[in-house]
């Protein structure tokens, strides 16, 4: 599996610890999710909702224009409320692992990469569907923007 380096590092961190510590890692990540820039202040109108997440999550994807960056770097923005730490944790995995990567590298992330995080036991497969949907929507937007 070829993952962008930051994402590969996260996967390694998760796989090295037991289920309880995986939850703690996810909790720490949820606290590190960056705040939204001003232009996305009105999340409900300017961002795409991910209804598969159990709690409200909005995401926005920006891809650098080719004349600025031939690699088409991808930037990700997420909005999830503090009372949804699991969803924030998933978003933070995406942000830490994929923000700044090229469009081609983001599109190359295997759709089932999350299985390597080993979260199914600690979080439940049903909840993990939110993360699957998040990646699918990110890729869809990258594809549309990088066309």
């Amino acid at each position: 599996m070829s993952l962008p380096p930051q994402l590969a590092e996260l996967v390694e961190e998760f796989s090295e610890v037991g289920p309880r510590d995986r939850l703690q890692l996810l909790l720490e990540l949820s606290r590190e999710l960056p705040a939204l820039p001003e232009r996305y202040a009105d999340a409900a109108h300017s961002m795409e909702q991910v209804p598969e997440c159990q709690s409200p999550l909005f995401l926005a994807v920006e891809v650098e224009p080719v004349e600025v960056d031939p690699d088409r770097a991808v930037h990700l923005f997420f909005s999830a409320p503090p009372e949804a730490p699991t969803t924030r944790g998933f978003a933070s995995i995406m942000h830490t692992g994929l923000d700044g990567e090229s469009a081609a590298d983001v599109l190359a992330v295997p759709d089932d990469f999350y299985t390597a995080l080993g979260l199914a036991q600690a979080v439940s497969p049903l909840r993990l569907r939110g993360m699957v949907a998040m990646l699918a929507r990110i890729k869809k937007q990258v594809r549309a923007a990088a066309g």
Partner: protein
Amino acid sequence: MALGNDTDPKLAEYTHPDRLVTTEWLAAHLGAANQGSDGLVVVESDEDVLLYDTGHIPGAVKVDWHTELNDPVTRDYVDGTRFAEICGERGITRDTTVVFYGDRNNWWATYALWVFSLFGHPDVRILDGGRAKWQAEGREMTTEQPKPEVVEYPVVERDDATIRAFKDDVLAHLGQPLVDVRSPGEYSGELLHMPDYPQEGAVRGGHIPGAASVPWARAAAEDATFKPRADLEAIYQQEQGLAPDQDVIAYCRIGERSSHTWFVLTHLLGFEHVRNYDGSWTEWGNAVRVPIATGTERGSAAG
């Protein structure tokens, strides 16, 4: 019975006021709970598996339904042996007063209470308003994890007949009152047809014929408490025509939202025989040759 009931006048209007406590009551009884001396254990049950870890009511323990109340292999709840371990590890004996609270209008708290009721745990109560009201009132929260002394909980056989319904029970029940507590879009069937969106886990959309559509959250007030009795009667009895002596089955997608409605009908309005169909739409909407109605009309199972 270790603890007296909350005598709050709003709660007194419900059929079983002993199944609820107010935030004031809980705050007043917490000191004793922390010492583990008066038989009170507060249990947080949330949709979000990490929410408890961000801060919880002092002394409260956590139960996660996905990873703890469900059997890890079979689609079913844990058995009596595992349930006894879950309780014992949390300092819960058969005589303990268990107060549940959680996020999202106590959705998952009522689910946990329903599962505890399958095992006949005698004294189970809901914190009216749940986590949201406790926080809105600026009451104490902590990230300190309690370390309860492990106690003995008896191995009790689960009763799957009284408050739980299976698919065959629902088939035999067609023609009698059913309550679909999902959103209107799920009820009519249109939500499964949205383009480009991953399926929700059912190959067919719609509802069980004859089911009334009463989204579960209609029973909750703005501050996440249950609506007063008169408001609930207006919805379930006057508007939907249900009666407390009827045999009623509630369902949703996997049986969690409908446990909220089960609680409302059983404990707040005094319906005598309400069952929760936990297979719900993820079973019915995938089952071969069961009748389905689409659209906003209840439909009927005839023919």
